[in-house]
């Protein structure tokens, strides 16, 4: 994300253009008398928010395929196998 500063005076006269920049993904810091007072950032859609949270989209589109479950041989359940490995 690119980042730049604009003064309040500049923002007032070029609001539409600055908002266009923000919509395209830029971050704009607004300054008054040289001091940063506000930050304009784009509103992200759901996919972008998930990406920001570290979520990778599925490699394959569509519903999750079904898997035929197995019958386990005698011994611990699969859940127990996972939990025991964590202990």
């Amino acid at each position: 994300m690119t980042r730049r500063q604009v003064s309040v005076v500049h923002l007032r006269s070029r609001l539409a253009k600055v908002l266009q920049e923000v919509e395209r993904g830029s971050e704009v810091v607004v300054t008054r008398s040289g001091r940063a007072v506000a930050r304009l950032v784009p509103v992200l859609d759901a996919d972008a928010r998930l990406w920001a949270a570290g979520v990778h989209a599925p490699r394959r589109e569509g519903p999750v395929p079904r898997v035929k479950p197995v019958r386990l041989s005698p011994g611990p359940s699969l859940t127990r196998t996972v939990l025991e490995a964590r202990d």
Partner: protein
Amino acid sequence: MIRFWDTSALVKLYSSTEGGHREALKRLHVFPRRPVRHVTSMIAAVELISALARRTRDAALVAAALRQLEAIGQVEFTERHRDVALRLAGSGLARGADTAIAAQALVVAEASGMPVEFLTADEAQSRVVQGEATSRALDITVVRLPL
């Protein structure tokens, strides 16, 4: 809504004798009224394949599980997740991988702004996630599946 699967919940899909098998299947395959994004952790994916391979020695099942994982969103482990995980681990209430996965679910809930349903059969992990969700006012519903 995001349905976040811990390994202890995912693993229930692969054996009909697991407690909570039917419930896990329903939550994965039955379409609810509002759209659901299925998500798990990259750490959980490795834990799952490891558990299936060690316990069943069934290469076909492992291959099928890998295909299934490709259709599920997966969360990487970044510095942001690590920082939350270290804080949780420091409380002494949970262990290693389960703490890392809990941290990932918490970050996803916080950063996405979407409601999260967290599925787990791990009691210690469910308590950690529930406690954090309450104290930080995160929109997380913890669903504890039977052992």
